[in-house]
């Protein structure tokens, strides 16, 4: 449990761009760990991230990150790193200068800045290409050097807008592993991505946005449980799925039990997952059915997204 001052807090934040509403009365309090910010195009994800880092200012409401306001950049940006979606770089800069220069402006000594630059380049897998001009980088390399810059000063809050864009599968896997590691170290990671399956693997929480408002927010399992319209899907691998199906149908809330094609499993849809889990405990204890594995089949960011926002638009 963390105190509110250690969290990333939005309190009734509204942002208008002229007469166009960017985000509408957004409130949340994010604890350390990995939070996925998902929603369709134009839902307000980037606006939330820009508000979080002071690149734009709220029309009303307040933004606090670990108790600090983005309007006070000196303490704020020592704690916060932001990897934006803007794919542009200062002219003529090399990868190393792109990291080293800002660290020097920040106030680090030459030795410190060199050490931090090296460390961040290494973590982002960009050491080899650091001496080349960024203009000659591929899209994936540009993405990684931006990420390296965002983490170079060792922030405690990392805001990442579509950080997996342009990365090849290998780089994606390495980057996700890096995010997981940073999340485990107690950092706040706020990640927007349209690659829901991949952010789902590393996210503790989800903030789901649509039309500038928050549709759902919280721990992924908790949010999924609150989606009452769609029964939860639970996949059980067991020795006797037919008997388990018969027992399941006797329970209130079970709306479907489908045998797997290989005959070694059962997919159950239920509106009362707690009761079904109790059933599993009972049959396992009685030894009537040998349970090999139990896994929620739609307890993830992607499913929550599909249920609450729909599949047509696609997140971005």
């Amino acid at each position, binding site marked *: 449990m963390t105190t509110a001052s250690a969290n990333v807090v939005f309190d009734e934040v509204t942002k208008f*761009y002229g007469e166009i509403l960017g985000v509408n009365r957004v409130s949340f309090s994010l604890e350390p760990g990995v939070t996925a910010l998902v929603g369709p195009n134009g839902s307000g994800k980037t606006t939330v991230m*820009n508000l979080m*880092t*002071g*690149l*734009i*200012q709220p029309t009303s409401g307040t933004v606090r990150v670990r108790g600090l306001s983005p*309007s006070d*950049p*000196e*303490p*704020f*940006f*020592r*704690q*916060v*790193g*932001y990897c*934006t979606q*803007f794919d*542009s*770089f*200062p*002219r003529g800069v090399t990868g190393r200068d792109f990291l080293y*220069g*800002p660290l*020097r*402006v*920040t*106030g*680090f000594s030459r030795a*410190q800045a060199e050490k*931090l630059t090296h460390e961040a380049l290494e973590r982002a897998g960009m050491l080899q290409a650091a001496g080349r001009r960024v203009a000659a980088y591929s899209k994936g390399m540009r993405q990684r050097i931006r990420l390296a810059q965002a983490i170079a*000063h*060792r*922030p*405690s809050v990392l805001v990442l807008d579509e950080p997996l864009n342009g990365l090849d599968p290998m780089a994606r896997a390495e980057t996700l592993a890096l995010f997981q590691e940073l999340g485990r170290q107690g950092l706040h990671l706020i990640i927007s991505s349209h690659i829901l399956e991949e952010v789902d693997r590393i996210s503790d929480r989800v903030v789901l946005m649509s039309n500038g408002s928050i549709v759902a927010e919280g721990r992924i399992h908790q949010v999924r449980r609150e989606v009452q319209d769609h029964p939860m899907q639970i996949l059980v691998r067991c020795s006797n799925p037919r008997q388990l199906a018969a027992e399941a149908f006797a329970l209130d809330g079970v709306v479907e039990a489908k045998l797997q094609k290989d005959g070694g499993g059962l997919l159950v849809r239920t509106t009362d997952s707690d009761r079904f889990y109790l059933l599993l405990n009972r049959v396992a204890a009685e030894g009537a059915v040998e349970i090999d594995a139990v896994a929620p089949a739609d307890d993830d960011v992607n499913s929550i997204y599909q249920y609450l926002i729909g599949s047509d638009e696609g997140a971005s």
Partner: protein
Amino acid sequence: MAAESASEFGRRPWGLRARQAWILVRREVRRNLFTRRRIWVYLLAFGPVVLLAIRRAMPHPGPIDAAALQDATRMLAGMMQFYYVRLGLFFACMGIFTWLFRGEMVERTLHYPFLLPVRREVLVVGKFLAGAAIAIALFEAAVLGCFFFLYSWFGSLGWNYVFEGAGLHQLGAYMLIVALGGLGYGSVFLGLSLVFRNPIVPGAVFFGWEAITPVLPSWLQPLSVTFYLKPLYPISVSSHLPGLLALFTVVTEPVSTLTAVVGLLCFTAAVLAFSCYRIRKTEIAYTSD
């Protein structure tokens, strides 16, 4: 390290800010001085120097005497008032200072300095000092060049005038005028670039404003740069000019040198304070630029 450094930084915030501003100045000078984009600024500054150098390479057409030297001195005074300060320095400052922030907005890189643990006021001061250093260095060099080629044409008579006559005093006055003009115009154009997406039109309005300063009510005249620069010119050229041109050089509200210098520095500081206020409100909105 972030936490350790934060406490270390927190102990000497003004020292740190000064260091940040110095690093920004060096970065901006490198970015804005040695670039093809600034070739036209070099032309504005050194065009007259090149012309005088070409003239210097030719033999003097008439007798080298005191009258010819006086004519040359008046020509230099006119060149300073009509070309260097009113046109060359003005448009060079327009190009240099409006590009400092607007250029980063156009190139979509302004978010990088905005995401640093640096007060935005420090960014304004750093960029302003860099722009001033560039403009002043180029135009001071140009004034020196003009002075050299103009008076060296007169041989020993010219050198005597420079070192034993009024030459050095005039040179000092022109250098001071260029420095103060760079600061004054620079602050205005930096401020305009933070208010208007396209500062060209307000820049043109400001050009007109500077021209009509002498006919403005006395309480409005201090809101221009030329009001403070005019009293500093060592030679008045207005009596040798026809009506409308004389209007541009005449001093209708004379002030002392000290008042002019302090007044222009205060004017610059006030406009910079406004820029600092504006930068705090500036948002990153590349899509609409």
